[in-house]
Structures are given as structure tokens and as C-alpha cells.
């Protein structure tokens, strides 16, 4: 039956996922049986009682016993399903007290996460295996929704409020999370990677941002950062105008700012644009970029600059 479940549902990333799936599969089989029963009755009757000219049909107006049975039995079934669903809901609603807390800020169309030690990431979460993690979430603009299919959890993120969701990951490796409440143009691109690490890897990742970067040339690493850290949402690489200036041919160019002054786009300019984006605003654009201070580790900044240099 496991292969059948995996045909319909995503991989299970937590014990909670297995519980949800148990109810899902129960409902699936129950529905299948009921549906086949209804379909069989409808088709069987249509064939068995096929029209014969002149045949008189019996005048059956009702049958109280039967009607009580088919009202009460489904009701009882519904009571069972309600409590089954409620059991899972109670677990989903109340995070264990010892959970690690991650602050989530959702914004069109980027996720930022802040760890207890102050580390920040964008569109990228690492969590230690076997430990409950609680996400405390808010939005800076419109509604969003933090949805982790493998953990079977999601919750809306409401501006002006904090909402919570939690899970205990049990399966090492990559999973993904995504926005499930419509938020405009970039809604379907608002997704990111959730990596479940063992304790040691997680600690190391927190300190250094991991050493994955050593496996790639700087410009390739930079290209990956562009996707992962959300740069791609606003900065194109083909010259198309986005929320921010395109990166195509930007390196080495003189840019005119909104205050009329001009600056050369060099390494120092690019680094400043990432750390203090509102210090200089290119003419014709709005001051809407968030600071990536703490989000980008030194290797990430180096990689991004190397990558931008390649975009002639």
C-alpha cells in the first residue's frame, strides 16, 4: 500500500505527515467504496429497469426505516472522521515548548528567515533533524502562506499579525516550501529549499552558511545565489526591466542616480547595493530593495559580483 500512497501524496518528511496520510488514505478508500456503490446502483438500475413501453412502476413514496438508516449511518461516520481530523489538528495547532524558533518574514516575493543566533537567510532554510521547529511568521505586504508539502503543514501569513506553524523533520535531505496564498505576479515563484541536516551539519551551516560553495567556481555559485536569495525576482539578466535594474552589462557602466549624480558600477558599488540598497537609487527605480546584511555571506557576495561580471 505504501507505493499506492506515494503515488498520490508527497514524500513524508515528519511523523505528523504520516498521521495526516493515514486519515487521507482512510478517506480515499471510504470514498472509493461509496462512489463505486453509488455508481453501481445508478448504472445497474438504468440497465435492470430499462424502459419497456407500458410497464407500470410501483408507487413507492418513502421508507422511514431506510431513510433513518441512510441519515444516521453517514452521521456516525462523520463523527468519527471529525474527531480523527481534530486529533491531527490539535497536534498541528500546538507547538512543543522546546521548539527552535525561526522568524519568517514574507514579502512580495521573497521569504526571509531569521535564526535564534541572528543568522538570516532568504528562500533557504536549514533545520536539524528530529528537533521541533516553530516558524513565527508575518508579512510586510499582502497575504502569503507558508506551505511545506512534505511536512503536510501550511498556514496563512497575515500582515499586522503573527501566525505560527511547526513540524519535527525526520527525513534528512532536501524538501521544498512554497507560497500557497495568492500574492500577485511572483506568487508561483515564491518558493524555496528546506534542507534537513544532522546536528553537526546544521551547526556548521549556521556559522558559515555551509561550505557547499567550495564545490563551485565563484561565478556559478553567484548564479545559484541569484536564484536562491531571491535576486532573480527583481533583477533580470537579459536586459528586461524588472522591479530593479537588469544585471545585463551593468558592471563597469556609469549609472545615473535619482539625485542626479553618476557612479561607476564596480565591486564596491555592487557590495554596497547589497548591504545598503537604499544608499544609492538608480534613476527611474523605487527604493524598495531590502538589505541583504546577514543574508549574504562573504563568499556569496564574491560569487554574485563574479557572476555579474560575466553578464556582458
Amino acid at each position, binding site marked *: 500500500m505504501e507505493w499506492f500512497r506515494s503515488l498520490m501524496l508527497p514524500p513524508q518528511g515528519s511523523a505528523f505527515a504520516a498521521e495526516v496520510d493515514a486519515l487521507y488514505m482512510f478517506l480515499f478508500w*471510504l470514498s472509493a467504496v461509496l462512489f463505486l456503490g453509488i455508481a453501481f446502483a445508478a448504472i445497474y438500475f438504468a440497465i435492470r429497469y430499462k424502459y419497456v413501453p407500458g410497464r407500470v412502476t410501483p408507487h413507492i413514496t418513502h421508507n422511514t426505516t431506510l431513510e433513518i438508516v441512510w441519515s444516521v449511518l453517514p452521521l456516525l461516520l462523520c463523527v468519527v472522521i471529525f474527531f480523527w481530523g481534530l486529533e491531527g*489538528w490539535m497536534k498541528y495547532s500546538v507547538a512543543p515548548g522546546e521548539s527552535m524558533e525561526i522568524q519568517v518574514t514574507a514579502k512580495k516575493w521573497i521569504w526571509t528567515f531569521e535564526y535564534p543566533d541572528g543568522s538570516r537567510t532568504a528562500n533557504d532554510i536549514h533545520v536539524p533533524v528530529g528537533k521541533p521547529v516553530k516558524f513565527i511568521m508575518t508579512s510586510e505586504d499582502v497575504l502569503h502562506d507558508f506551505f511545506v*508539502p512534505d511536512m*503536510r503543514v501550511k498556514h496563512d501569513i497575515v500582515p499586522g499579525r503573527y501566525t505560527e506553524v511547526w513540524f519535527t523533520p525526520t527525513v534528512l535531505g532536501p524538501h521544498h516550501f512554497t507560497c500557497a496564498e495568492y500574492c500577485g*505576479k511572483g506568487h508561483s515563484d515564491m518558493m524555496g529549499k528546506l534542507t534537513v541536516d544532522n546536528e553537526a551539519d546544521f551547526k556548521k551551516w549556521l556559522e558559515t552558511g555551509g561550505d557547499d560553495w567550495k564545490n563551485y567556481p565563484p561565478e556559478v555559485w553567484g548564479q545559484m545565489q541569484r536564484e536562491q536569495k531571491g535576486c532573480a525576482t527583481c533583477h533580470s539578466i537579459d536586459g528586461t526591466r524588472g522591479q530593479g535594474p537588469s544585471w545585463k552589462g551593468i558592471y563597469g557602466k556609469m549609472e545615473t542616480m535619482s539625485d542626479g549624480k553618476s557612479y561607476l558600477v564596480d565591486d564596491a558599488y555592487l557590495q554596497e547595493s547589497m548591504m545598503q540598497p537604499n544608499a544609492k537609487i538608480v534613476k527611474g527605480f523605487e527604493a524598495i530593495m531590502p538589505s541583504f546584511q546577514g543574508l549574504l555571506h562573504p563568499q556569496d557576495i564574491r560569487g554574485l559580483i563574479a557572476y555579474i561580471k560575466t553578464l556582458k
Partner: protein
Amino acid sequence: MAQALTHSDPHIGDRPRPAKNYLNATTGIWSWMSTVDHKRIGVMYLVAVLSAFFVGGMFALLIRLTLLTPSHKLFGKVLIDADAYNRVFTLHGAIMVFLFIIPSIPGSLANFVLPLMLGAKDVAFPRLNLASFYLWCGGAALAVTSMIFGAVDTGWTFYTPYSTTTQNAVGLMTMAVFTLGFSSIFTGLNFIATTHKLRAPGMGWFDMPLFVWGTYATAIIQVLATPVLGITMVLLALERAFNIGIFDPKIGGDPVLFQHFFWFYSHPAVYIMIVPGMAIISEIIPTFSRKTIFGYRAIAYSSVALALLGFLVWGHHMFVAGQSELATVIFSALTFLVAIPSGVKLFNWLATMYKGNISLETPMCYAISFLLLFAIGGLTGIFLGALSTDVHLTDTYFVVAHFHYVMMGGTVIAFIGGVHYWWPKITGRMYNEKWGRIACALVFIGFNMTFLTQFFLGSKGMPRRYYNYLDQYQPLHAFSTFGSWVLGLGLFIVAAYLLASLRKPMDAPDNPWGGTTMEWLTSSPPIEHNFEEQPVLEHEPYDYRPKVKKHA
């Protein structure tokens, strides 16, 4: 067997077709535009809502075509970009819900048939009836304007604060919805008064056809729930126009409040959509089974029960939206209660077929399609009513599939079945039966290909309203798109043979199906004032016993 109304004995040629009927009693465009005849208004509504269905359907095909591949490319060109996609699904939803499904059955078929079924000359307030049609036109015009000037991309739910902060024609769209709401309220008022006051002599409440019961229950919801939508739209407009903080947290509002208001209308609206569909099925099944309806009172009461329960379950749209956990638990429990009257109806229809004398003309093919599709729609609702599974499935394609099974597989299939059932009465013409069944089969197959697939997409974690999607979902998306072509083809065939039937001379008998309700007593098409003389109730509806006396 003294003139029993049975299929073997339809009164073809029982009496000559009257020279004058409601279609040719007066002529000229103005005679239609200023008509207060419920039948003409019903026909105008039919044309109007079917036009809206066509436009909404084109948008649906475009959505599916865009999602055929993750690159959205057709012949090397990107079909539409993310912004356009968002507008297209918004228009698809808004048109289908507000311009098509909500007014569809009440405006067209109920308008035409309800007074006939009651043996009445017209609805209680004929002028108000015309006014509600023109309000519909006004609302539709506003909606079309908002389409042309600055597209709306909020989704048909207009969730705040997105809808209060985006730079587009949301204001016009909310005005459109507001206007359409009043159209719906007037129709509801009219049907309530008509049902109370204009029943034929001898017709008590439990002698009314079940279509009337369903329409009556719907009218109650229309009158009670729609004003809340109107109020919500006014608040939304006030916030946008005058920056009054109601829903936008930046100026002190609460976005979740909007969702409460919105679903307080829009959940009952689900029953405005489905209860008339069920009401049509309650007519078609006994007629083509030539057997009395099983559990008349249970079906009548279950329509009213659905209408009332519909007001108590709006919070099930918001399990993970930020309402209190306790409220969520209560809404889940109440939601399960909806399963009971729905199930009761389904079982009653099946029991009506038991030992019937069943012929599978096109309307009955649609009725059986309805039973199967509505069963799937209802059963998958349980996954969403149960709390823990809903957390995973809400806001995914599972929800999209579920409500399409209820709205399209339920209401629209019943509506198409009803159009076929009453087509001879409305137009005086029979359509091509063979093509009718072929098209019904195509619609059934195409619909299941399109939407059954989406349950699996949703379960796998594919969120709704997504322009881009992960490659892993592509095979299912492609299959769903292929299904939409089959479905579209089926519906085009329906349009083709129905329109073709209008080109031939009138050939429909007064009672082609052997129906027992009063609309079959008059000529096809009916005369301007419906009946030559006031019909009097002589037997309960759906009485197929021999010795039924024939009405004059």
C-alpha cells in the same frame, strides 16, 4: 389506463398547436426589451448567462493551454505572461461565479418554469423581474468595462489587502459584483412571493414540484446572504477610495475580517448555485424513471436544511487563514452536518430509479452524470472538512478540483440537463437526440479527465493560482489540459445542435417526456398567459399510477 401521462402515450397531436404563443404574440425588439413576461425574461436570461458561460469557458481553455507545459510556450511563443495569467483566472472565476452560475438556473430556467409549475400566469412582480434582468446587464457591462480598462488580478475572492493595494480596476469590479447582487436579491424576492401567493388552487406546500422547493430554498439564501456581499463590496470601495482602515492593516484594518464577510456570503452562494441544480435533478429522475419520487418530504426538507446550514459553515474556508483554533474546530463540526442532507438527496434519487421504467434520453444522461460527479464532489468535500487533511489540501488543486466537481459537475451539468429537459417547452422544438447523448458522453469524459487529475495534483502539493510550476507536475497538467479540449468539444456540440434545432419548424409535443408537473399541461411553447384556463391540482406531483385523470 385512462390517459395516464406515460412515455408510451405522450400526447403528440393531442390538440393543435395554438397559432399565437409567447414567442410570437408580439413582435419587434422593443416588445422583448420591455416585456414583463417571465418566459421572455427567462429566455433573455438564458441567452445572457450562456454568453457569459462561453466567455468564461474560453478563459478556462486559455488557462489550461497556458499550463500545458512549464514554459507556457505554444509553437515557440510564450502564450501569456504571469500578469496576464493572473487576470485570466480572475476573469474566469468572476465571470463564471457572478455572471453565470449564480444567475443561471434561477434567472433562466426557474424564471421560465416556476410560474408554469405553480399554474400561475406570471411571477408575483413581473416588472421587478425585468428590473433584475437589467441589473444583471448593468453588472455585466461594469465587469466587461473593468476587463477592458485595467484588468483585475485579485482572484474572484478579492482578498485584502492585495485587492485594496493593487493598481487596477478593482473598484469597477466591486461595483459590478454589487449590482449583480441586487439582481440576485430581486429574483429571490420575486420567487418567494410567487411561491407563497400564486400556487394553483388545491396546491399545498407539499404538492409543489421539488424544483419549486429547491428554487424557494435558493431564494431564501439569495435574499438573506447577498446583502452581506453588497456591504462588503461597499466597505472595500470605501477603503480604496477614502483610505478608511477596514481591511488593510497598514491603516488599522484586518484582512481576516474581509474573509469572514466574503465567505459569509460566498459560502451560502455555493448553495445558491447547487440547490437549484439538485432541484432540476429531482424533476428529471422521476420523469425518466416514470416512477414517483422517493422521499418527497425528505428532499424538500433537505433543500431547506442545506439553505440554512449553508449560513453556518463559512469558516471552513479559513481553517489556516488566521481565525481562532476554536472557531475552526466548530466550523469543521458544522461542515460535516452538510453531508447529511446532501447524502439524503443522493440516496433518494437512486431509490427513485429502483424499479423504475428508465429511458436514457439526454436529460437523464445528464442526471446520471450529475449523480456520479456530485458524489465525487461531495466525498472529496469530506477530505477538506476534516481538519488535519484540510491543512495539507487547502489552497491546492485539490480544492480547485473539488469545487469544480460541485459547481460544474453538479450545477452546470444539472443546468445543461435542465436546458435539454425544458428545451421543447421553451422553444417548441426537439433537438437531435443522438448528438445529445454523444455530447453528454464527451462532456462527462472530458470533465473527469480535466478535474479528476487535479485531485492528484493537489494531493501532491501543487498550489492553486500558480503560473509557474515544478516540472514534476507536468504530466498531470498536460493530461488535465487534454481533458479540457474534450470537454470543450462536447460543449460546442451541445451549442451546435441546440442552435440547429431552432432552424426547423416547431415539432415538440406538449409533453414529450411524459412529465406530471403543470408546465407540461400547456402547449409547447406556452401561450402568452401560460394556460388557456386556470389549471387545478388533481394529483400530487410525480404520480405515475395508472388512473391518473387527465387535466383539461
